[in-house]
């Protein structure tokens, strides 16, 4: 799931400064789970825009905006409203905003597409309605087999591969005292598994070209 949070309202209004009529869209996938771009949220955002003097032409909610056919499908039948609007405000991730632009272009519309959210990471772990967090950075070269199933690339602030820095205090990370030191967790886990010796093996620098952007996967 892509984690999203609201941009400050001032920033959203500033982005829409030259636009009087706005179509608000969301995403019934990740943004719905994050409670930032589901049905209640696009309704609430529309009310805020109206209160700020904008005219909300309509609200549209693609099932999953990242699937362009869902987005195009949600827009079809609304061509007159799209033609009349000055801009779109997307309550979705950065991908959703770009797919919205692409879908509009493919439908023959040239409309400003603004985004109302900041994307804050790929949240691979979700505790429903409570917390979403990132445990994997999709580095393209997984080391979990060597680190007791705990990812130092993501959980160590410095992404160290050969053991801890000297900065942990009371088992906590020097960067964030609320967070456990990833390497102490890895060590304890490997100790419990009787595999501490495996941590003595030198880990070579990562091939960061596997994280060069934009990344793609050919499906099928």
């Amino acid at each position: 799931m892509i984690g999203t949070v609201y941009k400050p309202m001032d920033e959203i209004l500033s982005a829409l400064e030259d636009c009087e009529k706005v179509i608000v869209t969301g995403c019934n996938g990740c943004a719905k789970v994050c409670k930032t771009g589901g049905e209640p949220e696009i309704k609430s955002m529309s009310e805020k825009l109206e209160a700020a003097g904008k005219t909300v032409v309509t609200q549209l909610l693609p099932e999953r905006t990242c699937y362009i056919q869902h987005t195009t499908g949600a827009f079809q039948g609304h061509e007159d409203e799209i033609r009349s609007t000055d801009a779109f405000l997307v309550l979705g991730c950065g991908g959703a905003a770009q797919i919205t632009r692409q879908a509009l272009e493919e439908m023959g519309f040239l409309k400003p597409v603004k985004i109302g959210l900041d994307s804050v990471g790929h949240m691979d772990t979700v505790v429903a309605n409570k917390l979403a967090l990132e445990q994997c950075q999709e580095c393209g070269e997984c080391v979990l087999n060597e680190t007791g199933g705990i990812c130092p690339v993501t959980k160590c602030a410095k992404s160290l591969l050969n053991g801890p820095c000297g900065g942990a205090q009371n088992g906590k990370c020097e960067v964030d005292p609320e967070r456990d030191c990833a390497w102490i967790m890895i060590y304890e886990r490997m100790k419990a598994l009787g595999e501490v010796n495996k941590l003595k093996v030198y880990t070579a620098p990562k091939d960061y070209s596997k994280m060069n952007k934009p990344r793609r996967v050919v499906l099928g």
Partner: protein
Amino acid sequence: MKITDLFRIKKSVLTSEVGPVKGSVRPNPKSEKPKCLQEALAVRDYVDAVNVTDNQSAVMRLGSLPASVRLKESGIEPIYQITCRDRNRIALQSDILTAHSFGIDNILALTGDYTSLGDHRSAKPVFDLDSVQLIKIADGLKKGYDMMGHELTQAPDFALGAVVNPNFEPLDLQLLKMEKKIEAGAEFFQTQAVYDPRIFERFINIASGFGVPIQLGIVLVKSSKMAKFMNENVSGINVPENWIQEYDRAGTSKAKDVCVNLTSELVRELAPMCNGVHFMPLGWSSMVPEIIDKAGISKS
């Protein structure tokens, strides 16, 4: 002069540390010597070499390389510190070659403090390499090859040092990393500041068996406030409560006396267990000679 040559012939090697200034050091007829050079000059006759920190605590300053070169020009042997925080593998290797080209004979390779501890908190942290990898790659440069196996036109040569934190819990994990650094090519170690003799003893009893020289690291404590601040904010440092009470009892005007007394006592007790002492005076370089004299140690 490589510091490793000294470890071979001397029982105790003494070093101190300076932090480069936040500004340029191009000589200017109107300006006085930069503070980092003044501090290094204050300890020149008492120590074998002076570490130059690399944007210490992630606070942006003059680079450790030009500051190291300035020291060298003034007859002070620099230990050029290089961290993984601000440069990727291309820049780190290039800087090591540059350092050697400018006459640097000693390099201390570290991970580096995280960006959020410093004065440019929104900076992008690099950490392309970790310290073990940097040491292995630096060792490879000495053998004439870059990390991709490409041959160098001229190989650099330098003493390659590393750091270790004896205060770390679990110590086994810190020692495991220390051994990896040795395996990678680390030739000497300077420790994080240690104030508790029992902690140092526990560490050195094991680490002395690794066969590489180890210097005890000491940060000069200036006040109880600083001690408390370090305990709360500086990674891995633990100034004991009795030290804090000493500073409180003596008051600000006597803080330097307390510093000399407590530090020299500690050094006197711990220095014989290892291969020398590394002082981190944090601006109090002028105190280092007195501490060295009082501790009964000397650079040769």
